[in-house]
């Protein structure tokens, strides 16, 4: 009789195995025909353009809060004018990529899991296969590609709007001269930071989309199962993003710094 821990470990190992199988098939589907171009464009629009509003809002308020909080701290050292440097470095290296990814996990990850999960429980996935369509190529590949390429694009938008939000607070609350603010923003930006900040979203986007697709396609148990899959997708995606952030940061520190 297997102990509870052994069963849990076996189940976890099986999940990882199935997930890696989905990743392998998604990579195969990306580099071999047939391609479902219409679905790829559609997902780029839904995931990219559709997430713009939430990313803009999250980035703006994050930048504003960051400027507000850091302004108070910098005051203690008489360094209020360098608030721009702190905002830009924080947004570009960490907050922009991670918060954008977490917003995407909630909006896009849950949507993907719910949609695919609903298709599973209503036999639409089986219907696709019976009609000669590979669900991996039709459903998973477009979403993964959209996740990989739209996450960095949205991160750039978030970074920019976050720095802009920081300027609003710096100019009107902290009374920092605008030219001083923008000068410190650019002064505090190193190419290594930019590389790190722009590379992370590719990893995050990949994780969010693949985890959501994996969870959605393994949904069982009717509508209750769909609800559970949505929750699992968001939780697992969020944890994966935060964990990946740590590991990617360590790799880049080792490579670039």
């Amino acid at each position: 009789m297997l102990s509870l821990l052994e069963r849990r470990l076996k189940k976890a190992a099986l999940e990882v195995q199935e997930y890696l199988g989905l990743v392998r098939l998604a990579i195969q589907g990306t580099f071999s025909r047939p391609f479902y171009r219409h679905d790829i464009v559609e997902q780029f629009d839904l995931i990219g353009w559709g997430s713009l509003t939430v990313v803009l809002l999250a980035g703006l308020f994050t930048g504003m809060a960051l400027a507000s909080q850091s302004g108070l701290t910098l005051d203690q050292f008489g360094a209020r004018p360098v608030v721009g440097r702190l905002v830009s470095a924080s947004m570009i290296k960490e907050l922009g990529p991670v918060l954008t990814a977490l917003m995407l996990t909630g909006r896009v990850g849950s949507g993907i899991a719910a949609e695919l999960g609903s298709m599973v429980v209503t036999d639409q996935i089986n219907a696709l296969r019976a009609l000669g369509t590979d669900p991996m190529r039709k459903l998973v590949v477009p979403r993964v590609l959209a996740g990989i390429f739209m996450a960095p694009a949205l991160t750039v938008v978030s970074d920019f709007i976050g720095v802009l939000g920081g300027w609003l607070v710096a100019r009107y609350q902290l009374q920092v001269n605008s030219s001083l603010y923008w000068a410190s923003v650019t002064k505090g930006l190193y190419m290594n930071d930019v590389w790190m900040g722009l590379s992370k979203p590719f990893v995050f986007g990949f994780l969010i989309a693949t985890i959501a697709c994996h969870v959605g396609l393994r949904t069982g148990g009717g509508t209750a199962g769909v609800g559970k899959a949505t929750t699992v997708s968001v939780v697992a995606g969020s944890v994966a993003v935060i964990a990946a952030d740590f590991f990617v940061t360590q790799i880049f520190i080792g490579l670039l710094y």
Partner: protein
Amino acid sequence: MATETALTAKQILSEPGAPVIVFDHVVLAFDDKVVLKDVSFTLIKGHTKIILGASGSGKSTALKIVVGLLKADSGVVWVNGQRVDQLGERDLMGVRSDLGMIFQEGALFDSLTVRENVGYKLYEETDLPLEQIDRRVQEVLGFIGLSEHIDKMPSELSGGQRRRVAIARAISFRPSIMLYDEATTGLDPITATTVDDEMIKLRDLENVSSIIVTHQLRDAFYVAEHMAERDANGKVRVVPATAEKEREAEFIMLRDGIIVFEGGADALRSSKDPYIRQFLS
């Protein structure tokens, strides 16, 4: 010296009386639960196999094995001369191009219109001109009498209409074998008869071989004991079947994963088996 040429598999399969599906000693279990214990049957070209059984007896599982959605643990499954139990997903696409499957509840793609659902395979998986596909979609919707619903979404259709659109989707690419998984379950008797008539028309007017999985006895006997014909004006009527036609419909009853009956409608009705008598009562 031999002068006759061996027939190709395609030629053999196109002859009357050829087996199009062979299920041979198939076994399938999910974890500890054995769903199919040792199931064997053959579907002859142009004939109908009606698989009856209680919920959980393995009926739908058998259909999914035929189309390759599930893999058997052991046994052999032939479809149109190909061993589907040995094929990978990519190779199964070729087999599925001649199989049409109706799922319970229809399984229509709810983000696509009726037009896009019916023409799905032709739009997505073929290079046919759009005008030709549109014509075919109109034709099959006309066949099932739902032409006026062509631009509606599945959510705007009734349950019976969704099943009929599912049939239209499955026949749009002219398969020679149709698989029906509880196609009339949950429908009122009048709507169920409408769906049964579509099955009969396909079988008798398009010479489609069919496997019908159901636990609805009324529909099972209706399909077995009726046939479609064109009258002098070319209009299609569904009438009581001739004795010869009735012989082309065979019943299989599954119980706990094994076949407990195989035969015609009359033999089923006159069976003395207590389980069958209870099932038919």
